[in-house]
């Protein structure tokens, strides 16, 4: 019999609820062997990976009450940091963690696990004949080539539990990783203690979004589970929420295309035969299976496709609402055929689209309605071009054509639409795409992780700026 392994789980890119200290106290009463939280993901799209920026989730701030409990009680913690999770994102979070440790007088020993993939390493793999195939056949991505690797701004790997386990073996207070598989963070310690992989993975799936798997769901809350040889029990840590069969099974649906099969590094978690039984304080989960497969890690890479500039117009004129698409099409065409833009537009270095909120702003080409049915509509001119200057110039040109351009039966000859913003054109950002969303076969799961052990807060000269 393997002794139970108790996990306190939460999400570190969501601010904790105001009474989180009560939840942590409850968990400590029941026992906690590891505190685990994910803080990376691709749900925000390729922008963050490409730009190196972060949404501003204050991750090092959110973990404070959990780290306090962990250090006080000698409980290891395992966090992934930085949303996109490349080195620049991780380093920003680690600097915030330095500040937190400094302020609180903490001096934890931390294993930092970097999972940004070196382009030369990956290109070398490809040159050596590794077939790195698209993770999804519907992604439109071809088998990875060296040129695609070279064009990417940054590449990260979703490391599995193995590098986290290697990091934990360094007698550390905690492990902080870059981009990582969420459930891998949760699987690491239970598997080291002898919990079967299928059970560790199933528990990870239930815990990875913190209190979102409870009823009512709230990722600002924590969640607790006790794992053993045959399954695990999940509990809420507050009377304000509860773990129910419905809440847990519905959580297995969340953000997954298949309700019971989940491909992971080294195999698929199969919940087809999983059972859920109510207990006095929560739900007992059993019956998960692990279908072994060759070890692969998911790679994410982002490439810049251009620079965006936008402008807004409001339309309330009935005649213009009746023919709004004809009017916006004419505005787009005016840009594409203007002598100063024609060559750029023809070569694909200048793209323009007008989104009409009130008509097809949400569904785009799939919108069945062909006319504005309300009394007003919002128009967003959206330009993506090879340079920020070209994007701004084209967006302004489009605005002027829409503002003063004639349309059939026009009465509004002084100005066609309402302008809410000055300056008219907003330079938005660079635009990125996932040029890499591929599976890298690995003989050694540790090959793409770089582990270093550091004492925080780090001295100023040690910190990567």
């Amino acid at each position, binding site marked *: 019999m393997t002794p139970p392994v108790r996990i306190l789980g939460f999400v570190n890119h969501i601010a904790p609820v105001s009474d989180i200290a009560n939840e942590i106290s409850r968990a400590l009463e029941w026992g906690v062997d590891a505190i685990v939280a994910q803080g990376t993901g691709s749900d*925000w799209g390729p922008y963050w990976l490409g730009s190196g920026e972060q949404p501003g989730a204050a991750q090092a701030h959110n973990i404070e009450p959990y780290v306090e409990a962990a250090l006080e009680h000698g409980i290891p913690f395992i966090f992934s940091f930085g949303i996109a999770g490349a080195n620049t994102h991780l380093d920003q979070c680690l600097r915030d963690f330095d500040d937190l440790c400094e302020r609180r007088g903490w001096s934890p020993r931390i294993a930092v696990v970097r999972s940004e993939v070196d382009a030369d390493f990956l290109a070398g793999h490809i040159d050596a004949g590794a077939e790195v195939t698209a993770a999804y056949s*519907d992604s439109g991505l071809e088998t990875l080539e060296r040129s695609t690797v070279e064009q990417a701004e940054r590449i990260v790997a979703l490391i599995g539990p193995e590098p986290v386990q290697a990091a934990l073996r360094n007698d550390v207070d905690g492990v902080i990783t870059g981009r990582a598989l969420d459930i891998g963070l949760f699987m690491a310690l239970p598997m080291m203690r002898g919990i079967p992989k299928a059970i560790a993975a199933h528990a990870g799936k239930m815990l990875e979004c913190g209190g979102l798997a409870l009823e009512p769901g709230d990722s600002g809350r924590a969640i607790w589970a006790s794992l053993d040889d045959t399954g695990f029990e999940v509990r809420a840590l507050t009377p304000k929420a509860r773990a129910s069969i419905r809440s847990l099974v519905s959580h297995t649906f969340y953000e997954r295309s298949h309700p019971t099969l989940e491909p992971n590094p080294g195999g698929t978690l199969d919940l087809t035969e999983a059972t859920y039984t109510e207990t006095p304080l929560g739900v007992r989960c059993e019956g998960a299976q692990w279908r072994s497969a060759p070890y692969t890690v998911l790679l994410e890479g982002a490439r810049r496709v251009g620079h965006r500039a936008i402008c807004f117009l409001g339309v309330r004129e009935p005649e213009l609402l009746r023919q709004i698409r004809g009017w916006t099409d004419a505005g787009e065409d005016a840009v594409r055929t203007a002598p100063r833009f024609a060559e750029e537009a023809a070569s694909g270095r200048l793209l323009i689209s007008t989104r009409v909120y009130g008509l097809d702003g949400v569904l*785009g080409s799939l919108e069945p309605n062909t006319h504005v049915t309300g009394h007003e509509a919002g128009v967003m001119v959206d330009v993506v071009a090879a340079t920020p200057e070209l994007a701004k110039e084209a967006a302004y040109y489009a605005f002027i054509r829409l503002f003063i351009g004639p349309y059939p039966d026009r009465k509004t000859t002084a100005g066609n639409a309402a302008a809410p913003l000055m300056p008219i054109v907003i330079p938005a950002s660079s635009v990125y795409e996932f040029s890499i969303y591929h599976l890298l076969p690995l003989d050694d799961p540790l090959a793409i992780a770089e582990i270093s052990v550091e004492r925080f807060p780090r001295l100023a000269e040690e910190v990567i700026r």
Partner: protein
Amino acid sequence: MNLYECAAIIRSKNAGPFTVTIDLFFPDQDSFELARGSSLLTVPGVAKAYGIDQSSVVGIYWDERILAGKVSVRRWSTCNDPWCPDLFGAHLHTPLAQGELTPQREGAS
């Protein structure tokens, strides 16, 4: 009755960058059976509701224990499209939700 009226919760979200999944939770067994037996919640029905190819419908799944269904569809516009209008995929339930729940026998023609 349409799906929107029948379901208690209809939640749409990305399942990875290239797929959207719509989770359906029903208030009672009758509602669940009505939806599961409908021609709307079949591969041809879902494809028709969105105006997409049947090959873009990844799967339709049911879990009677929690009176839930799940529809997964390849995204017709993803985060790799500079004009993607719904980056989290949170609003893509709407064409499906307004579909009528006609029994499969009657709707099979």
